[in-house]
């Protein structure tokens, strides 16, 4: 049984699945290159970011939940250029999840990283880094909901 993904994330997974392995890596690289800079308020206040220590390279994350009834989630990531794989995973999660409601994000299945078809090319350790990123986002959203 496959849990349904949010539309945007589902399209990204399909894009990856449609490619062969070298092109999947190329696509991940494009996500890495497309990861936007942090907005001004976070650049000036890095203490608002939390580090995802499960990633092999420094990844910083901020999860903002707004006051609307849907509790819309905005995501911000920061990772250095010498960590393109980490940046790529961050880019996928940003494009796939940013702007969704808290409920939609909590419903995202934890095995999404494995559905990108990268498990042969990328070491299990790194794949777990992406799973950890998703887990951290969900934990933060869950905490934000109950508070």
């Amino acid at each position, binding site marked *: 049984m496959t849990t349904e993904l949010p539309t945007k994330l589902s399209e990204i997974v399909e894009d990856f699945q449609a490619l062969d392995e070298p092109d999947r*890596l190329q696509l991940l690289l494009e996500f890495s*290159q497309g990861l936007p800079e942090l907005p001004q308020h976070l650049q000036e206040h890095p203490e608002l970011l939390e580090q995802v*220590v*499960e990633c092999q*390279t420094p990844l910083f994350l901020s999860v903002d939940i707004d006051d609307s009834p849907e509790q819309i989630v905005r995501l911000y990531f920061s990772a250095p*250029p010498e960590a393109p*794989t980490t940046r*790529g995973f961050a880019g996928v999660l940003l494009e796939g999840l940013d702007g969704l409601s808290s409920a939609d994000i909590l419903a995202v299945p934890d095995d999404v990283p494995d559905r990108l078809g990268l498990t042969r090319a*990328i070491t299990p*350790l790194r794949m777990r880094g992406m799973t950890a990123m998703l887990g951290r986002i969900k934990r933060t959203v869950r905490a934000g909901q109950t508070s």
Partner: protein
Amino acid sequence: MSVAADPHEKFAHYAHPERLVSADWLAQNLDNPSVVVVESDEDVLLYSTGHIPGAVKVDWHTDLNDEVTRDYVDGAAFARLMSAKGITRDSTVVIYGDKSNWWAAYALWVFSLFGHEDVRLLDGGRDKWLAEGRPTTTEVPAPQTADYPVVERNDAPIRAYLSDVLGHLGKPLIDVRSVDEYTGARTHMPAYPEEGALRGGHIPTAASVPWARAAAEDGTFRSRAELDAIYRDEVGLKDDADVVAYCRIGERSSHTWFVLFHLLGFTKVRNYDGSWTEWGNAVRVPIVKGEERGGVPAS
């Protein structure tokens, strides 16, 4: 060796100066047809973001490891890889990579299992090349397929298996992991979770010498005198020492293997690539926790 060694003053003090090249030397030899430059990184995408002009990529995970068994590729697969990268048995291979050449040293060690004779490291690796503002490109070279013979690995001289290490206890053994991994405070590298082990600690008798002590701030290898001070004076390795080094999966200990074998000239140095992810999960092998090295267990 067909291509003359880098006469750099620093390298002259090492036991095998011809195993290192400087960025200046490499810049002058980029067009040398006998030289093939190989980038080998931890991050599978890093090469694609820009690399030394003409460099080909060898990935430790997809190219050098067997897909099924926890082992390296066999002679036929290695020959196919070399041919595709335009490397002949006589090529001078210069390897460089990220993280102070961890993965580059690992690749060099695997090349050595196949007896590729002339394989060198770029001192300082990828980071130093970039820090000096030297040229990079995203253009991937399409080397002409080379003729590389099928040579089977010869593991015994430089690779130790678990059973070898059990029989080695009492002889010099170096644990190159972080101190917290050595004592068993943690079972994985800081920030590298889960690729851990069921048990924490170290192999009895192992001396703790984190690999990074052999690297300077800029990722280059420390000088001969500094390395002698660590491994000969502090650890007490004698000239005829029979040494085994290990870490978590064998990549950091390849860096130390390179230092001991090529830079300091110890002739009997083996890398235990099974390392803690094997030992710390194996049933009934002896383990010591804490800072004490521990003695040879009574058998």
